Structure formats: C-alpha cells, structure tokens
C-alpha cells in the first residue's frame, strides 16, 4: 500500500472507530464502515488537513470509498 493509502486508512480508522481489517480499498464509508453523512463531511475535512489539499464540495460528493479518497489525493498531489 502506498504512503497516501496508509495515511488515509489511519484517518478512517481514527474517525470512524472501525477495525483496520475492514478498511479495504473498496470499502464504502457509509455502506461498509457505518458512517453517516456528517461523518463523511468530517472525513473529507481530515483528508484536506492531513494532505494539504482542497477537496471542493462536488468532488467530495464523489468520494464514497477509501479507494476514491486515495485516488483523489494522489491526483491532487501529482
């Protein structure tokens, strides 16, 4: 796993209080990890803080899984 993926995973584990093995690349925040719509807003804020990127609202709406977040951040930092 890339460094970005590891850091994303850690944020998800901390914020949602879920077990590490559940946080796979395809895991959906809401369907698989028990997040609600407010949790996802906070997750996006945490990604922005951690990686120093800005995630506009329309982009945030399309970040539904751990993998989506990793891909967005990799692209933003490229």
């Amino acid at each position, binding site marked *: 796993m890339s460094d970005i993926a590891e850091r994303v995973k850690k944020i998800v584990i901390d914020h*949602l*209080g879920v077990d590490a093995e559940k946080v796979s690349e395809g895991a959906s925040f809401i369907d698989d990890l028990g997040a609600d719509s*407010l949790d996802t807003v*906070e997750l996006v*804020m945490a990604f*922005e803080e951690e990686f120093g990127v800005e995630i506009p609202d329309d982009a945030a709406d399309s970040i539904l899984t751990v993998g989506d977040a990793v891909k967005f951040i990799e692209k933003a930092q490229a």
Partner: protein
Amino acid sequence: MRRVVITGTGMVSPLGCGTEVSWSRLLAGQNAARKVTEFEVEDLPAKIACRIPFGDGSDGTFNADDWMEPKEQRKVDPFIVYAMAAADMALADAGWKPESDEDQIATGVLIGSGIGGLEGIVDAGYTLRDKGPRRISPFFIPGRLINLASGQVSIRHRLRGPNHSVVTACSTGAHAIGDASRLIALGDADVMVAGGAESPICRISLAGFAACKALSTQHNDNPQKASRPYDADRDGFVMGEGAGIVVLEELEHAKARGAKIYAEVIGYGLSGDAFHITAPSEDGEGAYRCMQMALKRAGITAADIDYINAHGTSTMADTIELGAVERLVGDSASRISMSSTKSAIGHLLGAAGAVEAIFSALAIRDNIAPPTLNLDNPSVETKIDLVPHAARKREINVALSNSFGFGGTNASLILRRYSGN
C-alpha cells in the same frame, strides 16, 4: 390530573459517578472542591471547582468510555456525555426498557442545561478565526446544542414521546423535572426521562461568572472551605459539573409493572422576580411566591414540610431565600430542617436542581437530612435547623427543593413519600 412518581435516578456528581455513591459520600460529609489543575487558572480570580472524579470507573470514578464510545465523545460536549451516563443509570434503575411501539411512544425526554457546550463554542471560534469556515466540524452544532442531551438520550433508548428541553440557568434541572411531571400529569406521556446536565468548568466560564461577581475568590488556597452557605465568610459559589436524571412515571403505570417508587412529585411552582438580570429581588418575593405555588399545587400547607433542599449557593442571596422560607413556614420554622448540598458538591448550574431533587427524594427514602458543610459562623439567626456540618437523622415525609436562576427565574419542587395510597 394524573399522579407522578420517581421510579429511577441517575447521577454524575462531583462526589462520584452514581446516585448511591454520591449520596453516601454526601451524608459522610465529603467535600468535592479542589484546585483546578486541568487548565491554566493563575490569571483567573476563581481557581477552584468541584470536578467530577475522573478515573477508570472503579470506586465511584467517572470513565466517559463506559458511557459513550470515544469516537462519539469527540463529537459532543461533555455535558451530553454526563447526560447519557445519568440517563442510562436512571433507566436501568427504573427497570424501564421500552421495546414496543406503544411503550416507546409513551416515553419522552426532557433534559436541560444552563449554558451547554460553552468550551466547544470557544474552540470553534478559534478554528473559525485561525483556519476559516471550511474547518468548522459538521458536529460543531449538534454537539453543542442544549437540547441534544435530550436528543441523544432519545435516540439511544428509542424514546419516541415528547423530546423537549429547558434552559433557565440555575433553575433548569428543577424546571425540567417539574415540566416533565406536567406532561405526564396531563397525559402527554406515561414516562419521562428528565433532569439537567452541565459541563461549565473551563476558562471562559470561570472568567465570566467571576466577572458577574458570582464566584468565591477568597478561598483559593483552601478550596474545601469555599462553599459555605449561610456562613459569615461566604463570598460566592464554587462551580460544579455533572448531571442528574430521574425517570418520572405515571403512578398507575409504575404500580402496574411493580416499579420501585422513590417519592411522588406532588408540587411544582414557577415564578419570575422581574427585578435584575443576576440578583434576586431583595425581599425574596419571587422565591416566596414560587414556593407558595408549589404548596398550593401539592394541596398541603407549609406545616407539612419536613426538609428543604435550599438553593443556597453560598452567596449574599442565601439570606434572601432564608427570609422567604421563614415567611412561608411561619411558626413551623423550628420543626424544619433545611440544608444546602452545594456546600459539598458546589453549584452544578443547570444540573443543580435535578441533582438536588434526587437528594431530596433520598432524604425522604432514608429519613435523613444531608448536611450544610462549613457552616461555622452563621450570618443570620433562624429557628430553622440548617443542618450544620453533619447529616441529621429525622423523619422526612415531605421535601421541598428550591432553584433560582439568573434572569429572575424560580422553580420549586415538592416531593412526598409514597406509601401505597
């Protein structure tokens, strides 16, 4: 109107996590005041408070993780965690776990707070200033709103009846119990989870209440001597924190399921001073009318009162309340015991009236008046027994609990022993 009884109690107090541990330590004369060490107090006029005993949950300590998952705690101010803990205790104590639609809809929540999540608001203010609006958490608002104590308790226990809240400063807890009792009496609910919660011990709140000249500032070096209601050396209240929650229940509903009954809520009075934003009217007229209304509602006379849990904050206002009580009880003064339990736990603001109503119910249950600590040199002469220093065993069948708040808002509750008729 339908009759209302208390069938469960829960408490997080500066003396401990739990009703019974708090009560036994109160009767033993323990005092919860100490120097605040969790944040900088050197530049504050009041450097002391009655804090909850934080710990691992053993020996009466409070461990927040026992009551709310850490990831959920992060989203709310501590007053909501205290309310959740006390509500869990109260519902377990009452043995009430509504599962059917009918039972869930018949059960409501009415928990208030005096000032709510002040510290979280301050922190969000710093975030807004330093990092901008995009860094304000989506949990900022729902974690600070006062009625979210009721909201969270309602969600956890699936209580789908009235979902209400009260904000009347230091009268909050008493108003919550009084208003919730009314909802049951009028048939809007059969069971109500009611009380108050407060987590005010932070820099801005100590600074703000000190600016109002409300806090004790002359006993910083000897915190356990600071809260001294009716004593000549009193100079303000000591801030406390915690929550008190009761399960209120319609009498027949409680009897039908064989519930334990602590006491019946027979009287409730409310009044306004219409005088000053922080000071009570000097003649105690508002407090007097409040108690009188509660007596009238209860259908008893002042001669029936055995014990009064005073508002008694350890400020100049103590003697105003005492004067109003003397006027109310007249010739019965010499048979009444009246104490201020704030001498042991400080002033829990919006939670005070609820915690003190529970103490009043326990005074009835155990026939004992809890003490007024530090009453070494009373500033007034009275025929009323102020229960100095040590708890007093005596017959208590009827107890009155007073709460008075900033804005001139007054509440009095009257509880009576329930003996099966």
